Each structure stands twice: as structure tokens, then as C-alpha cells.
């Protein structure tokens, strides 16, 4: 599992000289990712606080979900088109930060809201009863939240640091590089003396910047326990959440729709879906992305079923696989190229399937772990105490109880795999393009309208998953 990363280090170590030429971009990446993630955390925390104070029903959370479900590069595309309509050019840092905040602030919200309920509910009640206000209230409430805040910051920092789509779409045209786009451009630079080696060295640098944040990832959070706190500023909270949802979803949607549906010059109704569908790239992309995401999910479900009876193994394996999930996908992609380029797997969809399975396994195992941690293992043991064989106990008790967790894992992996870009941009080959690659290729080929059409398809598919029944808890 760690082999791709080891190969990357082994190969990159011989090109450490590359670091001398790119240290400024490393610093820039570090600063941009840490500050932007801080901004996302600020916005997300603010929204979560408002929602918590207003005692908004959890159904309001789903309002923010779409903004998170849209793949970042699709949001980037949408924002680009919308802002162009308004004669604003979102290229460069401003646009990147805008897209990241609209995508990851909801993530911060979703991560923090349950923590607010469990941690903050009782504390706030105590503050109100004992009339602790102002700065003293902040001192009573903030420190207990620090671990959760720090952990959420770490997750978002890692996501932004490793994000390829947004800087590729909005950064590169303005000459703004981050480490993932730099690694990619080195990999395809005619001037590199050893493109793969230099990219590997940059990948190592990316890994180094990611390492400190890996230590911050949380284990699992508690169950929400609702406390009778009086609702405050309900209107403000509802307006903020709706406003943010509008910003994060409607704004990019508007641009995509306009671009995909109307002729850019005459403005007449002329949907670009037919042209997009005529491109083999798009057809392959759709088929491959669907195939890959379903196969990845299926394989991971099988893995989950196979491992369910061994919680110790799940934990151990998850710790290892966390590396290939949390570390920027660029590292895994480059590692797999180094490892598998001479083999028959290279340039087939199978290498992508392997990459996806390695990348997303940690997510499935995490939900499985949450299930096993929730007492399912004990209930199976109880079955065994009553004389059921181990196999029968797992079959009749363990697996049925784990099913919602496995389903939750599947619905976590499916949309992410469907809209994956970082890995597929590095590993795709003719015939194994993904939807993400299709968008990017269409863009660099100047096929803006087709890209918008594919972006809309991706958005639609992501939203469809929103309506699938989620039966967790």
C-alpha cells in the first residue's frame, strides 16, 4: 500500500535539486492553503454557530450539502463563467480562494455542527444559567472546541493543498502555480531533463507540507445529544445559510447553464449537450467515470464485508490507507506511474481502478470502523455467547447491522470517485478518460460550452446522490 509512496521518495530523492528552483512556490502553496483553510474554517464556524444558536433543524444542513457535493473544478468552471458574465475575470488567487471557500466552508460547517451540539450544548447552557457573558463566555466555550477546530482545519488544509482542479482552471491562466499544478507542468514540460524525477521531487515537497496536518486528523466524533438551548437569531441564521447555499450553488450553476445553453455570440438558445455527446472523450469519460466509481465502490464494499469480522485488521489497514487518502492525490498518482509505467497495467482503466481503490479505501474503512466502534462487534459476541457460530453470528447480526455504515461509505466514495480529477489527470490514457479529464481537455481545447455541458452533467449526478436514502445512525 505504501509502495507507490516509497517509490516516489526513492525516485524523487535523486532530484532534490529541483527544490532549489521551486521553494518560492512551496512557500506560496503553504501560505495559500493554510490561510484559505483558515478562512473556510472561519466561515464554516460562523455558519455552524448561527445554526447552532438558532437551533436550526438538521434539515437545514442539507442546504449546504450541494455546495460541497459539486466537484471543486466544476464550481471553478461555473464561477468562471458567471463572473465573466459580470465582466469580472476570476483568474488568479482571488478566484481560487472564492471557489475553495464556497466548497470547503460547507465542509467545515458539516464537520463542526455535530461537535457544537455535543460539546457546546451543555457548556452554553451552563453559561446562560450562570450568566457568563462576553469575553468570559468566549473563554468558557472556545477552548473545548480547539481540538475539533484544529482537526477540521487540518482536513481542509490537506484538501486545499492537494487540490489540482481549481488552481489548474483558475491559477495557471494567471501564472499562479501551486505544488500540484507545478508537479503536473513539470511532468509535461519539454524542458525537464527528467520530468518524472522532477515531478516526484515536487511530490515529496508536497508530502512534506502535508505531513504536519496528518497528525491533526480526528478519530471519531461523538453522537449529537440535543440540549434545550433557546433559539436565538433564527432569521439571521436562516438567511446566512440560504445566502451561502445560493452563493455556492446557484452562482456557478447560472454560469454553467448560460454557457452550455446559449450561443456565446448570438445569444440564441443552442444547448451544447449534443456537441458534447458527439465527442468520444465525453462518452468515454461518462462511461469510465460511472464504471470506475461503481467498481471502486463495489470493490470497497467487498473489502468492507471481508474485513468486517476483523476489527483489528480494519483499524490497522485504515491507518495505512489514510496516507494515500489524506496525502495529496498527486503523490499517489506519480507513485503509481513510477511503479507501473513498465507494466501492462499502464495506460489501461485498471491502473485508475487501482488508484481509486487505494485512494478511497480509507473512507470506506472509516465508516466501517465507526460502525464496529458503535457496539456492533459486541452484539455479535453476544450472539456467540448464545451459542451461534462465529460465521452465523456475523451473517445474522454483524453484517445486517453494518449495512447502513457500508451504505454510508458507498455514498461517500461514489460521488468523489465520479468526479475525481487529480489522479485521473495523471493516470488516464486514451480510452480511459474520466469525466474530470473530459472537462479539463475540453477546456484546454477551447471547448468551453462542451466543458460547461459536462460540468452540468457532473453537477446533476452529484445532486442525484443527495436524494438517495441515507440510513445512518
Amino acid at each position, binding site marked *: 500500500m505504501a509502495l507507490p509512496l516509497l517509490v516516489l521518495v526513492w525516485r524523487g530523492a535523486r532530484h532534490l535539486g529541483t527544490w532549489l528552483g521551486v521553494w518560492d512556490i512551496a512557500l506560496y502553496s503553504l501560505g495559500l492553503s493554510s490561510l484559505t483553510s483558515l478562512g473556510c474554517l472561519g466561515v464554516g464556524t460562523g455558519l455552524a454557530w448561527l445554526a447552532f444558536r438558532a437551533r436550526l433543524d438538521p434539515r437545514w444542513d442539507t442546504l449546504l450539502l450541494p455546495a460541497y457535493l459539486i466537484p471543486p473544478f466544476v464550481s471553478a468552471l461555473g464561477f468562471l463563467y458567471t463572473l465573466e458574465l459580470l465582466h469580472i475575470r476570476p483568474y488568479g488567487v482571488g478566484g481560487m480562494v472564492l471557489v475553495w471557500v464556497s466548497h470547503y466552508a460547507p465542509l467545515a460547517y458539516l464537520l463542526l455542527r455535530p461537535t457544537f451540539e455535543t460539546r457546546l450544548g451543555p457548556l452554553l447552557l451552563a453559561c446562560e444559567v450562570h450568566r457568563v457573558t462576553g469575553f468570559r463566555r468566549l473563554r468558557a466555550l472556545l477552548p473545548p472546541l480547539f481540538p475539533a477546530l484544529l482537526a477540521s482545519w487540518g482536513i481542509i488544509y490537506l484538501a486545499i493543498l492537494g487540490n489540482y482542479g481549481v488552481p489548474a482552471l483558475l491559477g495557471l491562466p494567471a*501564472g499562479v502555480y501551486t505544488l500540484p499544478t507545478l508537479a503536473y507542468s513539470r511532468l509535461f514540460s519539454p*524542458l525537464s531533463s527528467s520530468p518524472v524525477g522532477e515531478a516526484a521531487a515536487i511530490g515529496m515537497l508536497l508530502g512534506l507540507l502535508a505531513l504536519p496536518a496528518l497528525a491533526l486528523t480526528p478519530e471519531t466524533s461523538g453522537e449529537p445529544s440535543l440540549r434545550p438551548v433557546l433559539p436565538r437569531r433564527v432569521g439571521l441564521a436562516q438567511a446566512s445559510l440560504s445566502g451561502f447555499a445560493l452563493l455556492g450553488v446557484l452562482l456557478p450553476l447560472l454560469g454553467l447553464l448560460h454557457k452550455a445553453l446559449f450561443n456565446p*455570440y448570438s445569444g440564441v438558445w443552442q444547448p451544447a449537450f449534443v456537441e458534447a455527446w458527439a465527442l468520444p472523450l465525453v462518452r468515454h469519460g461518462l462511461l469510465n467515470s460511472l464504471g470506475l466509481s461503481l467498481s471502486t465502490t463495489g470493490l470497497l464494499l467487498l473489502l468492507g464485508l471481508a474485513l468486517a469480522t476483523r476489527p483489528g485488521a480494519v483499524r490497522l489497514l485504515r491507518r495505512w490507507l489514510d496516507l494515500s487518502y489524506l496525502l495529496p492525490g498527486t503523490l499517489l498518482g506519480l507513485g503509481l506511474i513510477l511503479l507501473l509505467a513498465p507494466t501492462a497495467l499502464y495506460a489501461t482503466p485498471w491502473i485508475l481502478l487501482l488508484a481509486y481503490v487505494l485512494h478511497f479505501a480509507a473512507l470506506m474503512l472509516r465508516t466501517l470502523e465507526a460502525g464496529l466502534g458503535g457496539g456492533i462487534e459486541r452484539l455479535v459476541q453476544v450472539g456467540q455467547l448464545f451459542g451461534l457460530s462465529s460465521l452465523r453470528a456475523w451473517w445474522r447480526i454483524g453484517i445486517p447491522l453494518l449495512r447502513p455504515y457500508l451504505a454510508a461509505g458507498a455514498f461517500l466514495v461514489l460521488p468523489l470517485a465520479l468526479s475525481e480529477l487529480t489522479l485521473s489527470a495523471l493516470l488516464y490514457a486514451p480510452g480511459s478518460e474520466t469525466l474530470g479529464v473530459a472537462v479539463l481537455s475540453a477546456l484546454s*481545447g*477551447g471547448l468551453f460550452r462542451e466543458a460547461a455541458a459536462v460540468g452540468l452533467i457532473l453537477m446533476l449526478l452529484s445532486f442525484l446522490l443527495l436524494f438517495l436514502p441515507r440510513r445512518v445512525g
Partner: protein
Amino acid sequence: MPKTLWIVILLALFQLGQAQESLTLYAAGAQLPDLNALVEAFKTTNPGVEIKLFRSGAGEVITKLRAELEAGNPQPDLIWLVGTQFFQELSTKGLLRRVPPTMPGFPLRFAYEGGKYYEVRFLYNILAVNRNRLPKPPSSWRELTNPEYRGLVVMADPNYSGPALAALGTLTERYGFGYFEALKANGLRVEQSNPLLQQKLAQGEYALAITNDYGVRQEIAKGSPLSVVYPSDGAILAPTPIGIPTWSKNPALAEKFLRFLLSDRGQRVFVERGYYPVLTGLPGPQGSPLKILSMQAKGVSAELLFHFNALFGLR
């Protein structure tokens, strides 16, 4: 998990494992819809063939191919690039398969090294102008450094785009690197690819572009306010050769495709897509001049590209 989901997953796995008689083409210098039109036309006479396509800028295609060669696992059955440098390299290593130049009406001088690689259409670097933004365009490359065009001009990234690389080499040869320094001082912007900058040009983000002719013609056909200016100091003819490598798993099919491109049918597809044909006796694309004042593109040394990158902050 519902049974249907499992069935879908199994089908998906099956789909990934499917194989067919196929041809892998690595291509630069033509856009997806162009390639698609060629492939579809080829398929009408060769049904059941799957053509897998890797399309990108010439820089990316070459680098990807180099990496595959280094790993000992090169993929394409057919290579189509902008610029002859890489083909000369492959030819010296004996990695190109010669195809006898026996196509009727084909000028032999475009069968390079006796048929190891072929020119299949003509691609010119020209000046494109957005008429809405600039009613009075310049008429030569030279004039782009004039202050009246300050902040209006764009070109593609020569690291990525083959035609841009050709423009860099040719114009440096002609006017010295100082020409680009003057352009930079005059606010020249660099976008990743030609199609990308053509879109932005059409939308009025730029007023002038050093770019290829066929893409601009395609945008004009869609109704954009663009026009092509053939510079008085010479449009740049960028060579865009195609060749079959010796490692091709399906050389017969690859040759069939090459011969199709050089057939009357294939050439007409090129013309429809705004390219000049290489076969003699065929008309040029609609609305284009019969004769173009042009110069042959010059190569670019690594040193020149390095200077250019440093000048424009490209990493």
C-alpha cells in the same frame, strides 16, 4: 445493498475489461472535434475499429511519450505532432516505420525522410483580431510592438503548444529575442493553448493574437467577431507531421489511417475544419486566400525556451 446495485457494479467491471480492435493515436495540433470528424469519417469505411485518442499540446504529448519510452512501455500506434524535431530524433534511433509515398496527388517533399513521417495538412500561424475591439488591425508581426497595441496581444504557451513554439523559433530567428522582450514590455500575455486564447479573443478579453489559422476560422464560422490577418512579413507554416512508430501493435491499421488522411475524403475533412489541404488540386478552406505569403517554421533550442520562460514567469 440492493441486488440491482451489485449487478450494475459487475457490469461496470465488465465494461472496463472490454477489448476491441483498436488504434491508439497521440495527437497535437488538431482539436478534439477535428480529430473526431476524421475518426468518424475513417470509421465509415472501417467499421468496428476503436480509435483511442490522447490529445494535448505538442509539449505534453512529446513529454508523455518520452516518459513512456523511458519506462519501456510506449503506447501510441500513430504519432501526430507539431514540429519535426522529435520525429528526427525517433528517426535517428530507427523507431519510425517507413510508408512508401504512393498516394496520388501527394507532393513528395512532404513525405519527410522518404516517407518516415508525413505532412497531412497545412497549419499557419497568423494574426487573429477581434474586430469589435480593434477595427484597424496591424498588418505585420513587426507592428505588434507598437504602443497602440499595448496590453491587447496574446499568444499560446510554447511549452505546451506546438504552433506557438514554431512562432517563437521563427520570429526569434527573424527579429531576434529582443522582439519578444519588446512584446513583453508591450504587455503580451501568454495563455496555455491556442483554442483557449481563441475563445477569450472571441469574447473580447484580448484584441489580438498570435495563433493558428484553422481555429480562428472555426470560431468565425460559429459567428464570432474574429478575422484572420495574414501578416505581410509572412505567415508561419508550422510542420505537423504524422508517423508510425516501429513499436506499433497494429501497424497495418495505422497505415490505413495515415493513407485515409491523405486520401481525397480525408483531405476534405481537413478543409471543412478550416485547414489547407496538402494534396494538390483541392480548394482551400472557405473564405481563405488562394495564396499565402509564408515562411517555413524554425526550431527552438532549449536555451531559447528557457529564456522565454524566464521572461514570462512560466514554470
